[in-house]
């Protein structure tokens, strides 16, 4: 199967076109995967079920065995484990910054030096998160250093 990836202009909507003779089971599974699993998180907001785009997430944080999805201003509890998110979103903008936090690199405004060889990630919504020393090599690798 030929796979073509085209660059698009900034602001243009990303699109996946499937060109095939028959929609076989494998293709249907891929389409289902693209449409449902990756890229969306289901949350409960005032007894309403909503879907949140992964791109809108600033970071995930685990507190007392609960995992929270943090948007620019809102926070929702989700029924995922951090390691599941880490595995599911490997190779995307999500990066494990410490034992309890996964950050979205697309939402980081800048990094600042912190005590003890750590870094502080200053998010675009003003929040500050610690990147622990043990994850610094992975961050450098991710950013191509």
């Amino acid at each position, binding site marked *: 199967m030929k796979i073509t990836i085209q660059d698009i202009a900034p602001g243009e909507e990303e699109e996946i076109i499937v060109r095939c003779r028959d929609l076989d089971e494998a293709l249907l599974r891929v389409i289902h995967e693209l449409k449902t699993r990756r890229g969306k998180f289901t949350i409960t907001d005032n007894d309403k079920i909503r879907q949140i785009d992964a791109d809108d997430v600033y970071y995930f944080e685990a507190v007392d065995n609960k995992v929270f999805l943090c948007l620019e201003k809102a926070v929702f509890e989700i029924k995922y484990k951090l390691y599941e998110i880490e595995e599911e979103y490997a190779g995307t903008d999500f990066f494990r910054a410490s034992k309890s936090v996964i950050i979205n690199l697309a939402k980081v405004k*800048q990094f600042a030096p912190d005590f*003890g060889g750590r870094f502080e990630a200053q998010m675009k919504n003003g929040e500050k998160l610690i990147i622990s*020393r*043990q994850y610094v090599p992975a961050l450098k690798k991710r950013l191509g250093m």
Partner: protein
Amino acid sequence: MSETVKRRVREILLTFCMVTTGSVLVSAAYIKVFWPGDPQIKVGILWQIPVISFVCSLGNFLHPYREVSRRRAMLQKISHYLYINVVVLGGGYYFAWIEKGNMLMAMTMAFGIMVVFVVVSAVVWSWHKRETEHLNRKLQEYQAKKGD
């Protein structure tokens, strides 16, 4: 050799070089103050300084790679400083750099330790800051590539 061990060895060697350099400079000043003129020093000091510097460098193990709170990191830094004081002052008495009962010598040595510690910490911090600037440049490139 795992990446962590390599990193640790690199850090210890780097600290060793910086502490040795600092110790030689402080020792020169210390000798000038307490033994003015043209004193004769024993060859043994050429071994004593690197030995003390190496033991001081092992204090890096007080900063484990596991995740710690900011308060804990600060406590580790203080423990590291105290460890260096114990090693250098202990070594100072052992190798007779400090005369027993001479408080001025001990205090001068402690001052020297503080100077080296502050200078080494400042150098490490400036590297960390430069590394952060590099990280920020890479982050901007990463985000630009992603079309953010």
